[in-house]
């Protein structure tokens, strides 16, 4: 595959790499602590949850749709699994993941069979799940004390490498394989690039769409479980930042919002950029509110750079 990468595709990988290099140089020169191994592990801890959410978002965006409910799914899965930890221990993972998968399937079904635009379905699903999560935990964090459960994220199986990073890497590799080596993955690209022609070629467009929303929900659910294990509690609104960050990471990595081009293998670059930005700004003591503004600006710039407007008749 690699020898055939076109110029545009090569640029799509080179630009994020150059950007990462500049950021590392910038933050490293201002604060040498940024370049320490300890901070590298810190960075991995901070970005792994986003990595998992963003992989799901990438599949949805590849298909030309969007999922704005990922934040709420992270929250509700985190809280509910935290509640189940005393009873099920590490088995609570399954509860969180199941809730995510179910929410995603509902998203997909309403979008496909109700013919409601995906952004609207998922935008509305957000507050529904957030509200449900608040009701379940009665507005206060659910603290986790079970060490076995906490270890799934904070433990270290391999040297000093955080477990949560292993999860992220496994998910990354597995879903890159899914995207490029399975029939399902190919159909996701096809629908994003030309839904009508896909339909005329015998692709079960509806089924693939629902599967993709299931996948996004499933991964957000897993992310929620891991995030609560990392934070030692399931907290209301804990997932909120992931809505923008997952889309930003996908687009910054080089998956076009128009659908059909890019892929989860690229998203890791976007996640690293978003991660370095937060991590670096934290070290430089940039006020958290200003950090949010900067992230928003970076997202807009990334979309401006990657959106291939020649493919759009109208920009809506």
């Amino acid at each position: 595959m690699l020898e055939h990468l076109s110029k545009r595709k090569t640029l799509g990988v080179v630009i994020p790499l150059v950007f990462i290099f500049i950021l590392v140089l910038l933050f490293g020169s201002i604060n040498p602590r940024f370049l320490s191994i300890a901070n590298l592990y810190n960075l991995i801890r901070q970005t792994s949850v986003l990595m998992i959410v963003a992989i799901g978002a990438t599949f949805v965006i590849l298909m030309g749709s969007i999922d704005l409910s990922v934040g709420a799914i992270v929250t509700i899965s985190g809280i509910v699994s935290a509640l189940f930890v005393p009873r099920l221990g590490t088995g609570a993972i399954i509860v969180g993941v199941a809730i995510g998968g179910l929410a995603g399937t509902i998203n997909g079904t309403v979008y496909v069979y109700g013919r409601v635009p995906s952004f609207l379905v998922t935008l509305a699903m957000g507050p529904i799940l957030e509200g449900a999560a608040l009701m379940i935990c009665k507005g206060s964090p659910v603290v986790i004390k079970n060490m076995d459960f906490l270890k799934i994220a904070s433990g270290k199986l391999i040297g000093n490498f955080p477990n949560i990073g292993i999860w992220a890497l496994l998910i990354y590799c597995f879903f890159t394989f899914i995207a490029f080596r399975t029939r399902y993955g190919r159909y996701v690209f096809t629908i994003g690039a030309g839904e009508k022609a896909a339909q005329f070629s015998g692709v079960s467009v509806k089924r693939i769409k629902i599967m993709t929303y299931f996948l996004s929900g499933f991964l957000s659910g897993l992310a929620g479980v891991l995030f609560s294990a990392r934070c030692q509690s399931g907290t209301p609104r804990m997932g909120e930042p992931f809505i923008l960050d997952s889309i930003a990471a996908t687009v910054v990595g080089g998956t076009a919002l128009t659908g059909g081009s890019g892929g989860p293998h690229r998203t890791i670059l976007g996640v690293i950029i978003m991660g370095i930005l937060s991590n670096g700004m934290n070290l430089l003591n940039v006020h958290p509110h200003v950090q949010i503004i900067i992230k928003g600006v970076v997202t807009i710039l990334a979309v401006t750079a990657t959106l291939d407007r020649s493919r759009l008749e109208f920009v809506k």
Partner: protein
Amino acid sequence: MEEKKGKAMQENILKAEDITKSFPGVIALDSVSIEVKQGEIVGIAGENGAGKSTLLNIIAGIYQPDSGRLYLRSEPYSPLNYQHANKHGVFMVFQEQGLVPSLYVYENLFLANEENFITNGVLNKKKMIGEAVEAMASLNLKIDPTKLTWNYSFHERQMIEISKAFTLTKILKIEMPLILLDEPTSGLSDAEIEILFNKVKEYSERASFIFISHRLSELITLCDRLYIFKDGRNIKSLNTVRTTEEDIHEYMVGRKRESKFYRENLQITKTGEEIFTVDNLSKSGEFSDVTLGLRRREILGIGGVVGCGKTELGLCIAGIEKFDRGSIAIDGNTIHKVTLKNMMRKGVGYVPGDRKNEGIIGYLAVNWNITLPSIPDIKLWGLPLLNIKKENDITRTFISKFRIKTPRITSMCYSLSGGNQQKVLMAKWVAKNLKVIILDNPTRGIDVGAKEEIYTILRELIGQGLSLILITDDLLELIGLSNRIIIMKDGVITNEFDSPPDNKTTENELVKFMV
């Protein structure tokens, strides 16, 4: 009819000189000149793709010509867009409707001309509605302008479109407008056509018209003069007084058919048993009681004017659209669930006519396009995994077999020429090892060289044992390629012709059953 306008008609309202317009792969208009005199109703006749609509679109400012000059009321005229043309008194009734369904009827009537209804900076809706009511009444239309446009059926909207042209003429206070009617009668009932024609005749005191229709009798009844277009050229100007439909046929068709071009020497005369049977198929509003049988190693052609139902028939027998009644059988076995996937499984494929949207995917690579329908067949270790090596082998095979010119197998399809895209589209279905392929206009919009190659490919497919249903607007292609030809008109089969290589039917014979 005899004393059509004794009044002065000497002055030209429109003069077009040497208008040429090409689209990628085709020359739509080749140095066409026409004249329209004041108060005249001029008709344009010609086959599908003869360039009639393109010329109207140029006069209306929607397309820009590549070369040539337009004069309106003896002044040079080069409209930048449709609104600009309106200001000069040129209006068009669009073949593909130009109304916004979600607006009120009166809003549609005055769309983009609202400045004529502004009182103290706000829109005077009362005045707009008043004008609209008057406009509807003057055409005897039972349409409430304060209702949303989507409440009205296709033919009612067509009438709204027509009244829009008349209304704008009035509110823009244009003395002698030129109104372009692009197939306004398709989809209208006889009563509505009569109202329309009376209105056009009444208005022709104060306006000039260019009228396009597939129905030749309409052209003769309504028009003062006729131009006949063929392959983008204006080949004849006729006075309608003593013209018959047969005369027009003669001019419209009569292109020389080169049997070599269509590889007629390769046509197989001994076709096999019936492999694909369509029995009494009906879809309301599209076609009814269509019965046909395709034999093994046969090309069965289906012809008819645009809108005769042949395209919808193709979509239904491919399983893409649903039909109301009737049945389809393959090798004598009735198919109970006619869906695209099921038909594909049974060995039937469909090459759509809209290459860009339904056929190939521009922003996917050539190899991904070609193998798309075959992915379920080429599993890896029996799992739904992609067999990339096999995919690329298939792609390479077809690139050389169909002579597809592409820099790499991973090049994006949009970067290929129309002809090569069409070959990719053909390869996509041939790669799937089917028994029957239904083709809708497989050579639309591609150049002559590419056409020839597609014809060769089609003959080769027959040689390999496939059977083809060829739905096409190109009569010569229909005659040259088909073993048998079915002609449809208004949704029903009007005749069937045998078309053996040594005794081909003529365009004239076919057209008689088309219009």
